[in-house]
């Protein structure tokens, strides 16, 4: 996966957390996921389709997800609150949408959010590999963002190549 696209997610994570939650994020070095590793408790999933196909998943512990949702909503939101999944899903939506907007020349659609809540679960890998993990550290705790995506060529580049081949 091109580093430009990974950086688009890094910028979007920071922008979303700082704008909606007043929460600065220290983003660690993105890594290729080598195995499933330990599970997480809350996952916000957004699918990508079109010129980029795959998904982005925000992974949290119950504690960090609750704190983040509380900062986002401005009211206390625990995992049993009726708006808990809604808040996490909307944050995932903003991270995905913010990154998508930086994918110049690509026609991409994003899905409505899905949120998985359950102690120590894994979100199974799709056929798309490798998966990139972006570790995020904040004053309310750590979380990570996982990206598994195949990205097509920007239309402008593909068009230029076609024209070059034809001439």
């Amino acid at each position: 996966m091109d580093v430009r696209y990974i950086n688009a997610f890094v910028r979007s994570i920071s922008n979303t957390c700082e704008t909606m939650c007043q929460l600065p994020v220290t983003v660690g070095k993105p890594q290729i996921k080598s195995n499933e590793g330990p599970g997480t408790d809350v996952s916000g999933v957004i699918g990508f389709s079109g010129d980029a196909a795959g998904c982005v998943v925000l992974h949290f512990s119950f504690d960090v997800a609750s704190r983040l949702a509380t900062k986002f909503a401005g009211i206390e939101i625990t995992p049993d609150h009726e708006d808990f999944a809604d808040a996490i899903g909307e944050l995932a939506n903003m991270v995905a949408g913010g990154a998508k907007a930086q994918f110049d020349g690509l026609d991409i659609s994003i899905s409505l959010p899905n949120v998985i809540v359950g102690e120590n679960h894994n979100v199974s890998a799709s056929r798309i590999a490798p998966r990139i993990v972006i570790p995020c550290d904040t004053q309310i705790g750590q979380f990570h963002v996982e990206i598994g995506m195949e990205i097509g060529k920007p239309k402008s580049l593909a068009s230029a190549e076609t024209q070059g081949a034809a001439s």
Partner: protein
Amino acid sequence: MKIMLVDDSRTIRNIQKNVLKQLGYEDIVDAEDGVIALQKYNEQIPDLMIIDWNMPNMDGITLIRKIREINKTIPMIMCTTEAEKSRVLEAIKAGVNNYIVKPFTAESLNEKLTQTLAKTGLSQATPPAPASA
């Protein structure tokens, strides 16, 4: 002034409601998708609408086109994660008066609302006075 908020996220609708109430707008109705918004529109006749793009059942762009068929003048603001220029142009073509990209701040919501009301000639609310000690 009656404002209708249309977004499938209740958290977002609540955030928007809180901002609008701080600005002095008290008469607020909401809907979780385009279908419900269209039903409520006919019952409530809002003066302004703030509409998300990606929603189940009926998305925001379809809702805007349907509202414009029956009301050419109601101010509509799109509030969405869809930030690409092509999407903004599509929304303008459909009939929105202004556009807010999520994530948004209270200030940016206020700014776009003020711009929209100024353009369309509707009067702004007066923010409530701070409570005295």
